Structures are given as C-alpha cells and as structure tokens.
C-alpha cells in the first residue's frame, strides 16, 4: 500500500523532502548531507544547532525503524533494513521544522511503544535526564536493545512533546512519530 497517504499532513505544512522506501544504514549515513542541503536551500541562515538536532533525531528514528519495523530483513549478523517513510518539513503554524517517520509495526508492539512514549512525554526535561541516567546505570553489561533510551535521546533534542499516532489499516498497524525542532 502507499503509506505516504497515512502521514498526517496539514494544509500549512511545507514538505521539504519525503522518502518512502527501504531504510538501511546506507540511507542513514547520507541523512546529514540530505538534511543540511535541503534546509540551507530553504533557509540560508538556519542555525547550526537546529541542523544538528534534526540530523540526530532522524538517525534515532530511522535506526528504530530498521531494528523494530515489522517485516524488517536481516541482511547479515548486524545489518537490518526495513520499509518506512521519512518526511522533513517546515510547519508555518508554529514556525518549526519537523521530522515525521511512519512504519509498519507488529500489533503486540503497540502497547510497549505507547507505555514508553507516555512515560517520556509525562516527564519534564529534568526528570527525563534523571531517568536516562537510571536506564544507563541499570543496563551496564546487559546490552539490551531499546530500553526507552532512544525516545529519551529524541525527547531531549525536541522542542515539543513527542507526537505519535497508530493507524489501523487493512494491511496492518502503522506507527507515526513526529518531532518538532
């Protein structure tokens, strides 16, 4: 199905680039240049700190899709890829840039995702920083993947709460995440 149609667009959002396809580390390695090039074309005076945060957030979102997306494909021992949508845009309403990602997820992952996202959104930045340290401390030698550290790392760079939604379709369940800077 064409998942581009599932993404929540608003009349006054300006889409600066949109990618719908296989997300792999090769795409992630190129995202910094893609973001810097696209945004300096849109606004030549954009702050370096905004560019950096958009890059950092997009890496985390894309690598989440690679690791946890439904139907992700394992290419070798440590390499995964998965299909997804990635949009970089500018929202005139709140004068902010945003990154939206959307991907197919397992039905049973919805609850886990919701719990983690609600927990992160319910905390202020000080609490998030403290919770991040707790998670890191508890994880020494465990190497578990995705204990919520990723969402905390996204949240501390974001200027608003993490905006997310789940979309039920006849083709399955999709997860959309939008981060504003």
């Amino acid at each position, binding site marked *: 199905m064409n998942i581009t149609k599932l993404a929540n667009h608003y009349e006054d959002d300006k889409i600066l680039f949109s990618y719908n396809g296989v997300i792999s*580390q090769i795409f992630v390695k190129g995202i910094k240049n893609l973001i810097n090039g696209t945004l300096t074309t849109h606004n030549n005076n954009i702050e370096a700190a905004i560019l950096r*945060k958009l890059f*950092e957030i997009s890496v985390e979102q894309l*690598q989440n899709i690679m690791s946890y997306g439904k139907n992700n494909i394992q290419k070798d021992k*440590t390499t*995964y890829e998965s299909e997804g949508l990635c949009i970089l845009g500018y929202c005139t309403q709140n004068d902010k840039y945003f990154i939206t990602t959307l991907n197919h997820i397992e039905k049973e992952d919805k609850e886990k995702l919701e719990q983690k996202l609600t927990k992160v959104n319910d905390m202020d930045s000080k609490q998030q920083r403290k919770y991040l340290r707790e998670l890191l401390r508890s994880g020494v030698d465990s190497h578990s993947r995705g204990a919520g*550290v990723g969402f905390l790392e996204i949240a501390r760079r974001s200027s608003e709460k993490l905006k997310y939604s789940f979309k039920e379709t006849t083709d399955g369940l999709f997860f959309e995440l939008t981060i504003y800077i």
Partner: protein
Amino acid sequence: MNNINLEKTEHTPAIDLDATAGTINITGDSYPEDSFEFYKEIIVWLKEYFQNPKDTTIININLPYMNSSSLKVYFDIFDIFEKSALKGNSTKVNWIYLEDNDIAQETGEDFQLDFENLDIILVSKEME
C-alpha cells in the same frame, strides 16, 4: 600489546589507542547500526590495557553526536575507566565539545555524576 588506529568514517569516530604512550583519543560522530559490534575490539583492547596501564593514561574524547546504542557502549567504557581509577591508576578524561553543543555538554556532566571516582574534565571549545 598492539595499538589500534581506526580512521573516521561518516558514522564512526577516529579512534587512536596507544598502549606505549598511554593515550586514548576518540574524535567524531558515533552512530553505527550496531554499536556493540563496532566497539567490541575497542572494549577488548581497553580491558587488556587497563590490566597493566601506564603510570598515567590520558583520554581525550570528542563525540559531537552519539546514537543511543553508542551512548550505552560509552557508559560501559567509562565503567572500565573508573574501575582502573579505583585501583589507583592515574586515569584522566578530557570530555571535549563545541560550546554550542548543549547535548554533548550535558552528556559529559552526566558522566561526571555517574563516575565520580573518575577525573573527568569538561573542555568547551569555541566554534571555528
């Protein structure tokens, strides 16, 4: 033991581990897909080196960006540094960041809080 010298790539930092000089230098973004796999040989080297380190080990780390799995790995790496410091080995860490990079600064501050037995100095560099 052998030294390790890895060149910087788009998604991994330059890493220079020198057992003869007692220096550890790491510079660049770190966001490989599988950080535990990428840093495996680094961790093995560090564990071996700190069994019999130089009188003083100087560690310079400049990581403008780490993805969350690299952050977990560096937490483990700082644990190795601190264990060595607790054994009485002089282990000095310079945490280097550009002055406008508030996230890198905060990460350094958090490492100071979590590894209080380790000598970590925050070094803010001016923008070029």
